[in-house]
């Protein structure tokens, strides 16, 4: 178990670590993937990690995250494991096809790769690289931009496992696929997960991605997902994050959309110590639609940074962004959304909206909604607001006999409702609705999710050795 030392730069630490564990990381993967890793580590060497001088990272400092004695798993930990032993999803009525990642490795009940009767393949990316090398090689790394100031290059160098989903042409996957990403470690843990989702023409899929941590230990998750939507493919994507205060997540999602494809993304951040979510959407062909919704409810000293980039590269596409946040205590939130309309992307419709409510003077909101437009026949607009609850609405509720606390909660609930109402899966929407309500009442903390229900609000370290379970 290699540990990081303090006296060299974070970049150098990681580069050394890569070189030292090269054989374990590469294992028996296809040559093309190894070549991609080599290229990525060179990018890390050349460009380093983004720092607070980097645009879009000005308020999010990565460096301290790297200074912990992290544990790494370089040998394959993907194995059969009954996840019900340590975790139950609390969206009770949600009928899903559920798959699990434990500390970044795919754990399963039957097999690492399952092929459904309709031809859909679901399973471990590490396994998929063995079984379907051609398919993986064709797509993997073709959406991720290694030169972008992010941790994409680092992920590409280090990733070992994650989720692989392939939906064949014309197939509609009826049940939502639920990805449960669990961190459970007695030591600080750094993981690099990688997901690959390929949807062939006309296919339909609903993905629910839940991030949980079971311990209060320090963890850094640097994940990257690449999603390819071929013609007329449609994806409903939900990312629900409810993690411990000591967990840090840097997630970089890339979507590539072909003609008439449809993306509906919902990012719901209910808890999380440090979160940087980057979503990059490339509308490659005409008539593609992308809707990005987001809700973040943060308190204490949580930090959430949502960075969106929608690239209109073809005419007649539509994109919409709606991100809303409620910030309590000393929480900080950053929103930077950029709409790029390329020269030939005429008839583009692009909207962007970011609204924040600050509940305390210590909370901070930074918003950068950006438009970069090179075509003339477009309709683009953006807006950003930071403020507090409308005093008139408060007054109205007070005159109806509501106490101040209830009135505030009601208004915040309504504020968040605009995003929650866009969730299309009924049981999930109801559950999220409840969670938001509880969260705004201050009744929901990370402990609610913990199966141990110890009633302690203090961070506790549980010495559960997962390997012995």
């Amino acid at each position, binding site marked *: 178990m290699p540990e990081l030392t303090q006296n060299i730069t974070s970049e150098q630490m990681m580069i050394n670590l890569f070189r030292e564990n090269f054989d374990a990381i590469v294992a028996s993967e296809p040559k093309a993937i190894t070549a991609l890793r080599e290229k990525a580590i060179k990018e890390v060497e050349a460009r380093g990690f983004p720092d607070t001088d980097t645009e879009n990272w000005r308020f999010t400092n990565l460096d301290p995250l790297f200074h912990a004695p992290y544990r790494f798993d370089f040998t394959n930990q993907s194995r059969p494991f009954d996840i019900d032993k340590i975790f139950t999803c609390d969206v009770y009525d949600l009928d899903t096809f559920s798959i699990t990642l434990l500390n970044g490795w795919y754990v399963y009940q039957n097999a690492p790769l399952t092929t459904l009767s309709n031809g859909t393949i679901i399973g471990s990316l590490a396994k998929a690289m063995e079984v379907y090398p051609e398919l993986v090689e064709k797509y993997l790394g073709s959406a991720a931009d290694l030169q972008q100031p992010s941790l994409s290059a680092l992920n590409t160098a280090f990733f070992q496992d994650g989720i692989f989903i392939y939906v064949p042409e014309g197939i509609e996957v009826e049940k939502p696929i639920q990805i449960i990403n669990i961190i459970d470690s007695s030591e600080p843990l750094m993981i690099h997960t990688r997901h690959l989702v390929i949807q062939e023409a006309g296919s339909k899929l609903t993905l629910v991605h839940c991030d949980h941590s079971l311990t209060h230990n320090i963890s850094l998750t640097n994940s990257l997902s690449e999603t390819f939507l071929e013609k007329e493919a449609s994806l409903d994507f939900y990312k629900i994050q409810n993690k411990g205060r000591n967990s840090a997540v840097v997630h970089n999602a890339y979507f590539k959309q072909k003609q008439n494809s449809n993306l509906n993304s919902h990012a719901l951040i209910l808890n999380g110590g440090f979160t940087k979510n980057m979503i990059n959407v490339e509308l490659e062909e005409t008539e593609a639609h992308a809707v990005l919704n987001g809700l973040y409810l943060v308190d204490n000293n949580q930090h959430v940074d949502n960075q969106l980039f929608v690239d209109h590269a073809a005419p007649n596409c539509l994109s919409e962004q709606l991100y809303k946040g409620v910030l309590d205590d000393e929480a900080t939130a950053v929103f930077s959304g950029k709409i790029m309309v390329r*020269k030939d992307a005429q008839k583009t419709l692009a909207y962007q909206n970011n609204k924040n409510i*600050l509940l305390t003077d210590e909370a901070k909101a930074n918003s*950068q909604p950006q438009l970069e*437009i090179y075509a003339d026949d477009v*309709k683009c*607009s953006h807006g*950003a607001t930071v403020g507090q609850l409308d005093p008139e609405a408060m007054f109205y509720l007070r005159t109806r006999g509501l106490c101040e606390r209830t009135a505030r909660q009601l208004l915040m609930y309504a504020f968040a409702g605009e995003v929650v109402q866009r969730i299309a899966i009924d049981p999930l929407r109801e559950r999220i609705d409840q969670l938001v309500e509880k969260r705004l009442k201050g009744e929901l903390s990370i402990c609610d999710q913990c199966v141990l229900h110890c009633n302690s609000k203090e961070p506790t370290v549980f010495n559960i050795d997962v390997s012995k379970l």
Partner: protein
Amino acid sequence: MAEDKSNDILDEVTQSEYKYGFYTDIEMDQAPKGLTEDTVRFISAKKNEPEFMLEFRLKAFRHWQTLKEPKWAHVHYPSIDFQDIIYYSAPRKKPKYESLDEVDPELLETFEKLGIPLNEQKQLAGVAVDAVMDSVSVATTFRSTLEEKGIIFCSFSEAVQKHPELIKKHMGSVVPYTDNFYAALNSAVFSDGSFCYIPKGVRCPLELSTYFRINAANTGQFERTLIVAEEGSYVSYMEGCTAPMRDENQLHAAIVEIIAKKDAEVKYSTVQNWWPGDKKGKGGVYNFVTKRGICEGDNSKISWTQVETGSAITWKYPSVVLLGNNSIGEFYSVAVTNNMQQADTGTKMIHLGKNTKSTIISKGISAGRSNNSYRGLVKTTRNAENARNFSQCDSLLLGDQCGAHTFPYVEVGNRSSIVEHEATTSKISEDQLFYCLQRGIDMEGAIGLIVNGYAKEVLSKLPMEFAVEAQKLLSISLEGSVG
């Protein structure tokens, strides 16, 4: 062909400076090319400056040497060789031309369209004017009116000699030499500029304009303006001119500092129409300006209004630091880019005091193959209780080769602030165009009309005489962008 010809004429006019004698005694009154500590000392000595000025310049120069040229703006240009610039030339004493006949006919045509009186035309084009010219006598009466009120309005060099205590106290207090690359450069080598001091309780009876200051014509490329408004005073200041300014200097790095004390109000209007380069993007002025005002006292107000139509590259962010409680900052801007022009402009509103308010209205118009960006910061700190901002940034696109961009930064640090930003980007609506056309207005006229309507909100903030000219200027700047 016609275009080439006019380009030739343009080139000729802009380069003619060198041909027709700049100043005869070059050896004596021009600093050697390049920038060293000696250049800075040379400039200071030439201007016979007191010791504190030299120290200020040297500190700025030493700091500048540690800085790197910033690259973050959304503009592209070949990098500047700072050692290939002459940092000091004695002011021109000889006119460029003997009569208007020698002046570029295209320039005269523009003057005609703007309706500039003949004598002004001569002065603007650099033609020799009679000693009894109107504006000179205007300026003299103008000065005596100001002196009666105790208002100081003179060139920066003059102020350094006559009012060193005021300069020492205020210079660099709003834009320190450490502020940015170009501010440091300007602080080290600034040539001249304007100084304006409004005493306590005085309301300046006239619109102050650099145009009326006799020696304002040639302040050189590194201009520095300082405006101090004492408690309860008011001044409206106009910079620039709607007429196209021909200038041989590629790089302009100016600084404008405004200080508004308690209950004071300063209104600063700019019309910038430097040479934008030719239609192919050759030549043109780089306009890298640092403009900032501070609302130092309670209830003070600073308002920036700008109409930007010129320069190959514009890079400026007139800002207001709202320090006093209840202070107000305003920014109204119309930026037009055509052909190959690039503009990255906007504002910064820094809310520090309680109940501070700011309004930002920015209208960008891009045509040709130009790029027009709005970049603005609205920041409220922890103590800026009840701060309020409203920003609206609209972009209009004329043609499918141009770009319009919006980069707002909103940073809010307390719960009682309300900050709103909205922006739209679109082209001229077909319906509006159709309506104008069917009323018999030609295409160019229709676009001019619609653009003026679009920019009206900002133009209405300009002082009267400026506003009329600015409207004409907008139409002229967009000429040839239809088709």
